[in-house]
C-alpha cells in the first residue's frame, strides 16, 4: 500500500477523536464520582427519609399502593425485613442481593448511603446499573427497612438516548467534514508533487498550479513557482553559456587548424609564413586565456556564498595588482595615479584580487597611449568604494548595458586575445561579496566603481 498523507491524516484524526472521547469520559466520570454522586446521595437521603416517614403514617393497607405509586413516578424500591425477605416495587433490580451486614446496620438505626459509596470502576458511573446496593436505606420500623434509588430509565431515559444520538451524530459529522477538508488540503500538495516531478524530469515549463489561498500552502506554491521560473532561467542561461563557450572555443581552433594546414605548404613566402605564425600564436594565447577564465568563472559560480572570509587590506591588494601590470603600463606609457586609504573588508583575497586584475586589464586595454589611469578609494555609507578610471573613449549606452554579460566584447574585431569574461567574472565575485559594480562613461573618462560592504 502506498503511503498517503490523506490516509495518515485520517488515521490520526480517528485516533484523536477516539482518545478525546475516552479522556473526556474519564474526566466526566471522575467529576461524577467526586461531586455529583455525593450530591445525589444527599438528595436521595432526604427523599427516602420523607417517603419512609409518610409510609409509617399510612394505614397498613394503603402502604403497598403508596409504594407502587412512588415507584411508578420513577423510583426503584425494596422493602426488606429483618430476615432478608424482600418485596420489590417498580422496575426490577438487576442485582437483587442485599448483603446481611448492611441490613443489620440499617436495623441498628443507621442510614445506608449506598449511592455515595457505589463504585463500578473508572469507566462506569453505575448510574444506570440498577443495583440494590446502589440505594439509600432507612429503617421504617422494627421489622422493615426501605431501600430506594431513582429509576433513571423512567426519569430521563429519553434524555439518555437524546444525548447518545447527539454525540454520535456530532462525532460522525465532524469526521466526515474533516475528511472532506483534508482532501481539499491534500489536493494542492498532489498537484505540487506532479509539478515537482515534471521539473525533476527536466521540463522547466512554467507549472500551472492555482494558488489555493494565502496560507502556508499558498505561500509554498508561490515560492515553488518562483523557484521553477528561476530554474528555467538558469537553464536558459546555461544553454546560452554552453553555446557561447563552444563558439568561442571552436573559432580559435578552426583558425589554428586552417593556418597550420596553410603552413604545411612549402612554397609560402617568408612574410606570409611569419604572419600565419603570428595568427597561430595569438589564437593559442586567446584559447589559453579563455580556458583560464572559464575555469575561474566555474569555480566562482559554484561558490554561491563565501565560505572562507578573511580580512583584506584592499589598498595593499591594489598596490600588488599595479606591480603585476608594470610591464603593460610601461608598454603604453601609462601613468597610474592612486589615492588609497587603508581600510579592511571581509572576503576572499584571491577572488578579490582577480576583480582588480580584470578591471585594470580593461583600463589598460582601452587607455590611449601616454594617458593616465586613476585608482581611488573612498568610504561612503558603510561601503568601501574603489574607482578605476581611464581616459579611453566613451562607451556608448547600448554597449554599457551589455558590458557585464558573459562573452560580450566591446570590440568585436578578430585577433583580440581576451575572452569577454573579465567583467562577468568581476561582477560575479563582487556580488558574492555582497557588493556591486557599476560603470560610468563620459567623453574622456570611463570609470568602473566597485563598492563593497565594510568589515563589520
Amino acid at each position, binding site marked *: 500500500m502506498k503511503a498517503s498523507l490523506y490516509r495518515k491524516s485520517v488515521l490520526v484524526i480517528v485516533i484523536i477523536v477516539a482518545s478525546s472521547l475516552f479522556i473526556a469520559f474519564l474526566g466526566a466520570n471522575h467529576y461524577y464520582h467526586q461531586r455529583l454522586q455525593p450530591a445525589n446521595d444527599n438528595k436521595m437521603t432526604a427523599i427516602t427519609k420523607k417517603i419512609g416517614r409518610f409510609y409509617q403514617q399510612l394505614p397498613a393497607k394503603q402502604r403497598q399502593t403508596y409504594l407502587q405509586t412512588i415507584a411508578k413516578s420513577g423510583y426503584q424500591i425494596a422493602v426488606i425485613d429483618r430476615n432478608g425477605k424482600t418485596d420489590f416495587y417498580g422496575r426490577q433490580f438487576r442485582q437483587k442481593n442485599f448483603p446481611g451486614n448492611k441490613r443489620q446496620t440499617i436495623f441498628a438505626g443507621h442510614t445506608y448511603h449506598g449511592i455515595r459509596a457505589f463504585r463500578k470502576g473508572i469507566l462506569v458511573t453505575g448510574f444506570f446499573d440498577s443495583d440494590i446496593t446502589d440505594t439509600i436505606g432507612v429503617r421504617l420500623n422494627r421489622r422493615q427497612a426501605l431501600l430506594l434509588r431513582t429509576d433513571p430509565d423512567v426519569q430521563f431515559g429519553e434524555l439518555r438516548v437524546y444525548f447518545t444520538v447527539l454525540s454520535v451524530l456530532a462525532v460522525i459529522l465532524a469526521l466526515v467534514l474533516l475528511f472532506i477538508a483534508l482532501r481539499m488540503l491534500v489536493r494542492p500538495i498532489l498537484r505540487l508533487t506532479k509539478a515537482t516531478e515534471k521539473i525533476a524530469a527536466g521540463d522547466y515549463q512554467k507549472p500551472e498550479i492555482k494558488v489555493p489561498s494565502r496560507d502556508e500552502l499558498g505561500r509554498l506554491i508561490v515560492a515553488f513557482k518562483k523557484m521553477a521560473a528561476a530554474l528555467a532561467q538558469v537553464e536558459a542561461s546555461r544553454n546560452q553559456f554552453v553555446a557561447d563557450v563552444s563558439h568561442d572555443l571552436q573559432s580559435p581552433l578552426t583558425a589554428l587548424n586552417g593556418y597550420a594546414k596553410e603552413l604545411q605548404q612549402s612554397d609560402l613566402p617568408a612574410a606570409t609564413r611569419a604572419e600565419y605564425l603570428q595568427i597561430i600564436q595569438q589564437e*593559442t*594565447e586567446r584559447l*589559453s586565456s579563455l580556458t*583560464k577564465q572559464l*575555469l*575561474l568563472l566555474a569555480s566562482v559560480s559554484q561558490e554561491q556564498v563565501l565560505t572562507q572570509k578573511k580580512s583584506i587590506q584592499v589598498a595593499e591588494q591594489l*598596490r600588488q595588482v*599595479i*606591480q*603585476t601590470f*608594470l*610591464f*603593460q*603600463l*610601461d*608598454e603604453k*606609457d*601609462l*601613468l*597610474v*595615479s*592612486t*589615492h*588609497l586609504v587603508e581600510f579592511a573588508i571581509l572576503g576572499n*583575497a*584571491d577572488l578579490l*584580487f*582577480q576583480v582588480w*586584475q580584470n578591471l585594470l586589464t580593461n583600463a589598460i586595454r582601452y587607455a590611449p597611449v*601616454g594617458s593616465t589611469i586613476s585608482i581611488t578609494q573612498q568610504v561612503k555609507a558603510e561601503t568601501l568604494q574603489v574607482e578605476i578610471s581611464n581616459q579611453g573613449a566613451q562607451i556608448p549606452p547600448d554597449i554599457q548595458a551589455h558590458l557585464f554579460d558573459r562573452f560580450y566584447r566591446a570590440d568585436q574585431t578578430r585577433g583580440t586575445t581576451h575572452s569577454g569574461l573579465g567583467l562577468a567574472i568581476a561582477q560575479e565575485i563582487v556580488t558574492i561579496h555582497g557588493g556591486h559594480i557599476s560603470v560610468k562613461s563620459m567623453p574622456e573618462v570611463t570609470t568602473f566603481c566597485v563598492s563593497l560592504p565594510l568589515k563589520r
Partner: protein
Amino acid sequence: MQQILIADDNTDLRRLVRNQLAAAGFDTIEASDGQQAVTLAEQHDVVLVILDIMMPKLDGVAACGAIKRAKDLPVIMLTAKSDIFDKQKGFAAGCDDYLTKPFDERELLFRVQALLRRYHNLLANVIEIGKIRLNRQQYSLEVAGEELYLPLKEFELLYQLAARPQQIFPRETLIQHIWGTDYDGSDRTVDVHIKRLRSHLPANSGIEIKTMRGVGYSLEVTV
C-alpha cells in the same frame, strides 16, 4: 656574462626562455626539477632564478624557499595555474616577482631586467626629496597621500636625477644608466621622456627638473 638559472620540467618551455634570455645577452643554466634547481643555484654563480611552480620532486614554492634560505637570489616564478591562486604562496616563500603562462617574451625580459636592477642596487631603494618619496622597490612616487606609478623609464630617470640633486647629468650618461650601453637610439629620447616626466610630476612635488642648455638635466628642490 650574467648567468640565469631556468627551472622547468618542460623542455620546450626551457628552450623558449633560454633563447629569449640569450638574445638579450644572458648566459643560462637549466634544471628539470625542483631539487636540481636548488643544487644548481647553490653550486653556480647565478644572478637570478626563474622557477616554474609545477615541477617534479620539489615544487616551485618549496624550491624557492630552499634557494632563498641558502642564498640571497632574486627569484621569478612561472605559473600556468589560474593566476592568483599560487601567487600568495609564492610570495610567502619569498619570491620576488612572477609571470603567468603564456607570457610575452618582452615581459619576461622586462621583469628580469627590472628585478636585477632593483636587486643589485646596493643603495637605499627609497629617496625622499622635496615633498616626494620615491620607492624603487615598487616603482612608486608618493606625494601627499597619493601614490603615482610612472612608466618605468620615467621613474628611472627621476630616480637617477633625484639620487644626486643639483648635479647636472648629460644626456649620454642618462642613456647609459637607463637604456643600457648598447642602446643605439638618439639623444632626443631623453628629451621626450623628460618632457613626459615633467607633465606627470604633481604640482606639489616640491622639485623641478631643470634643463641645462647644451649640457643635460638636473633636479632641484624648490621648497
